């Protein structure tokens, strides 16, 4: 039996798969882990779709699963395995390529709490309230975390931001 909800869920995943992959990649910075995260999250979400009572939360709910899965993989791996090919694939239309990449990788030094809000806000370019919905925290908390996260980033990068 496959319910309409499942059908919609599968449809959503297939439609936004690249988006999900890229989000996972932002956490783990390598292809294999990012693929695993998307696969595992899809499996887990389908498996517990019956716990999702309201369809309108499906999108944020899945992001949450994806983020939790990403964090779980990082914790498991302890260190982040960088994909060296990534640098080569970045096109030249990004100015200050090296610097941006440096910033991107510095995110990994932040704790999960701050890393997540910064990835969602700046890498994924989400709105504050969207982030609040996904993380189930209120908008002010998101803002606070963003501010503190950026402060910490500045510190990590030697005030170079």
């Amino acid at each position, binding site marked *: 039996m*496959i319910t309409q909800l499942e059908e919609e869920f599968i449809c959503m995943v297939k439609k936004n798969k690249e988006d999900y*992959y890229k989000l996972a990649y932002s956490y783990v910075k390598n292809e294999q882990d990012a*693929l695993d995260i998307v696969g595992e999250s899809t499996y887990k979400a*389908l*498996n517990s779709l019956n716990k999702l009572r309201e369809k309108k939360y499906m999108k944020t709910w899945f992001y949450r699963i994806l983020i939790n899965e990403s964090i779980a993989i990082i914790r498991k791996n302890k260190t982040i395995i960088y994909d060296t090919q*990534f640098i080569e694939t970045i096109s030249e239309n990004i100015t200050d390529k090296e*610097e941006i990449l440096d910033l991107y990788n510095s995110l990994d030094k932040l704790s999960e709490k701050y890393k997540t809000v910064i990835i969602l806000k700046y890498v994924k370019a989400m709105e504050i309230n969207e982030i609040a919905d996904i993380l189930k925290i209120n908008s002010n908390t998101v803002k606070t975390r963003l501010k503190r996260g*950026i402060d910490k980033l500045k510190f990590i990068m030697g005030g170079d*931001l």
Partner: protein
Amino acid sequence: MDKKLNELTKLHNEIRVPKELDNVIDNAINRERDNRVITMKKTNNKLLKTVSTIAASLVLVLGLTVNSSFVFAQGIYKIPLIGELAKMITFRQYTIENETSIGKVTIPNVEISDNKVVESLINNTINKKVNEILEEQAILDAEYKKAYLETGGKEKDFRKIETTVDYKLHYTSDNVISFQIFKYQTLASAYNENYFYNINLKTGNNITLKNVLGENYVSLIKESVEKQMISRMKEDSNLKYNIDDFKQMEIDENRNYYVQENGDIVIVFAKYEVACGAMGQQEFVVGSINNVRFPDEVTIIGEEIFSADAKFVSSTANTITLIINEEELTFETFDKFDYGKGELLKVKYVLEDGKKLVMLQCYPASNRIDLTVEKLSINEEGKIIIEGKSSDGTKYTTSIDEGIKVCSHKESLEIGDRIEIYYDSITDDKVKNIVPYTINLK
């Protein structure tokens, strides 16, 4: 600084997506479905047992090694519904195979999001019917094979008998669902059978011809059908109805009928009933459901839902026996319950037809708390915390976690509301101090 951070999005867009992504997602979906097939296999144990017993008795007669192998699930599909979104029919599909028979089964499932009681009543009826059909057929098939072998047929020439159980959705509206479950066989069309269901979605009750056509439904049907028979015979000289027989026929209010997509009520006469066998099943339009008024008030007619404390006695694949108020009662269910003997349970059940007992819900009493809400708050992380008191005065602070369910009959919670909390094997201690996950007040 923000400028640099904003540049990160560009970088994000540059991330190359590997081709394997599609595979990974498909694998995840399939893996989940495979899991479900295994679960499905478990629920069909009952049938498996019946058929295996028959297979085993054949071993004795023939001295052959018989392994009944069950191959489940070719595919799992869904169909969209004709009616609105609130309810839909999905189905599960599987194949059962043993030494004698191949059964191809498609079981419909009704979903009514705002009325789970009626939903489980309808689905229980369907599941019970399909199981009955399959069990009967397995016995018939085994008898057929035995006869085939005894009359000189060879085991190696024996072709497995294929039975298909499927359904057809005829009509659905806010109030009514009309569908048909049918069985047909490759071997003998005499075994073909049809079961028609017209169900009131607000109450779960069957809608009879009397309900849709009124008190004088008999004369109405007789007149209408007779007229149609005469006009059909005029149009086609090959047709021959036994009008005299029909006039004598007793028309029961539970006679088979279905509702067409346009709302027409179609009465069905089985093969041989009103015409010669060659003409097959005969159908006549006798009215329209569009003229029928269903009461707006939602009441379960003649069926009260009872909540009770119970002690577990035993359970089979389709029954559960409990002690309620010192009386031992057996309920029909579709699940097997594995509780310990004497374990305390909280149950909800209905009386079907005033006598049959049907189980709706069953929980270990230790995994359930009733609370009166005393305080609702949102903690610093934005999670909703419920504080309440149980009937014995114990104070609880709780919210929702995986394995925890808060039930209320209202859309939103207010102070003073009575709620029920169910949880899986978590100690009371943890209930008092739960990390909230999500809230659901349905």
